[in-house]
């Protein structure tokens, strides 16, 4: 029983990161029906941005101070991811807005490879794993025999807070309503006076900011990052988004946590489970899609021409 709870906790932490990244996939898909395969790399460059500020910019005397180092790392990570995402939208996707759907999809794969290679070739030491600072206490505490790291508490609290904030933003603010309107009928949104190019940029910005935070979290938990981390995390987060029903914000969060927990439990309880660690996500995905092709909270799949 204690094992079980322990794995639930681990899975929740894992799922929080998947969920944060999944939101970017699902929002962009909701607005422009693009599966932005480069979103995993937005997460990765965010982690590298955070590492950069810590390693090169923070004076030694401040690097140990969590109240300075953590916000500095997060802010720069967000700035790097957001900047990259805005450029990507402007230069790679916008010119293809009216092209056949395959064109932006292939472009996204190209952008993804481009960003990986850029970091590998040009980041100092980018070819190898880079140690990532712990930033907050590496300590743990026990509740009823279950061990919880402080980093995990931070990850889950921040992720949940951001998810709630995003929901409120989309439901309540004028820009959030414009986002929903654009996702339901972009042409009709234009007739309301909505500048849908602006809405699309805002969508990329929000997704990138969340991915950046996830990138820093990932670095803190595993204590290292490299140019490939966006691939697997991105793929699993994308799986989470599809699982929840792509285009659906609550679905992405749900899918993220579900995948994280399944992955943690399977690792524990399935014989040899941990060597199959990266497969469970896709098994769950297939199982769910067989029963509900639109995902857990998705609409019935509409076939679009």
């Amino acid at each position: 029983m204690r094992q079980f709870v322990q794995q639930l906790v681990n899975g929740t932490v894992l799922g929080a990161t998947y969920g944060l990244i999944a939101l970017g996939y699902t929002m962009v898909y909701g607005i422009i029906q693009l599966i932005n395969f480069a979103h995993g790399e937005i997460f990765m460059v965010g982690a590298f941005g955070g590492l950069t500020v810590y390693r090169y910019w923070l004076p030694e005397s401040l690097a140990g101070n969590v109240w300075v180092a953590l916000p500095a790392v997060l802010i720069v990570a967000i700035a790097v991811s957001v900047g990259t995402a805005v450029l990507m939208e402007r230069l790679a996707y916008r010119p293809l807005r009216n092209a056949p759907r395959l064109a932006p999809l292939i472009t996204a794969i190209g952008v993804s490879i481009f960003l990986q290679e850029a970091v590998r070739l040009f980041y100092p030491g980018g070819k190898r794993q880079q140690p990532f600072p712990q930033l907050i206490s590496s300590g743990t505490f026990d509740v009823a025999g279950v061990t919880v790291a402080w980093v995990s508490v931070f990850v889950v609290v921040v992720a949940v807070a951001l998810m709630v904030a995003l929901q409120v933003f989309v439901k309540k603010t004028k820009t959030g309503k414009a986002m929903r309107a654009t996702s339901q009928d972009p042409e009709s949104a234009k007739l309301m006076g909505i500048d849908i190019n602006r809405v699309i940029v805002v969508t990329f910005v929000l997704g990138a900011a969340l991915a950046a935070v996830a990138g820093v979290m990932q670095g803190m938990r595993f204590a290292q990052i490299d140019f490939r981390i966006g691939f697997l995390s991105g793929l699993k987060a994308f799986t989470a988004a599809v699982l929840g029903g792509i285009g659906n914000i609550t679905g992405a969060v749900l899918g993220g946590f579900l995948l994280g927990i399944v992955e943690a439990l399977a690792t524990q309880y399935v014989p040899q489970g941990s060597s199959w660690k990266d497969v469970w996500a896709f098994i769950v995905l297939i199982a769910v899609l067989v029963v509900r092709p639109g995902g857990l909270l998705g609409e019935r799949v509409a076939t679009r021409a």
Partner: protein
Amino acid sequence: MAALLEVRDLHVAYGQIDAVRGVSFDVDAGQVVALIGSNGAGKTTTLRTLSGLQRASGGEVRLDGDRIDRLAAHEIVARGVAHAPEGRRLFPRMTIRENLDLGAYRRRDSEVEADVAMVYDLFPILAERRAQAAGTLSGGEQQMLAIGRALMSRPRLLMLDEPSMGLSPLVMRTIFSTLSELKTRGTTLLLVEQNAQAALGLADSGHVLETGRIVLSGTGADLLRDEGVRKAYLGED
């Protein structure tokens, strides 16, 4: 004084297909102008071009004398042109109230609330259903909401594309009596209709469109009396 809207030699093409081929007409402030014509005549294409959803391949559109044919759709709305499109095009998963708020998206003034009340007054059924998703409304209610939403921008020119489409005669009469109410309040309307009888009955002037060209123009009353119009659009022989 120049007309509120001037359309001059408008051409619109979809690839090789010329859908609108040299259409010219005016809409004066406070007037109701009807565009009628059979399926595929180019009525929807004309409205879509006026509101910036479609690019003109030639000609000019002026609002208050200023060219608007190169502006993006959201900028044209900001200048006071509202378009209730063919097929209503509501935001189906948003409530009636949210749809109305989106109609007022460009507005910064404090009278939005009063205009919501005005729309509810015009269509009381919408007030009852205000928290209901637009996608669950009946066809008639959806059309009412589409008109109400377009009114929320306080347009100087309101363009309506086939508001009677798919409605029962009873609901259609409700819609047209609302349009005539709007007319008495001084709203400028550009009305596209297949239902020539109702549209021409309301309109100060009308134009008959055939394969992308205006083939006949006149006052609403004149067109209603016209032999050709009666045959082609009012089902008489």
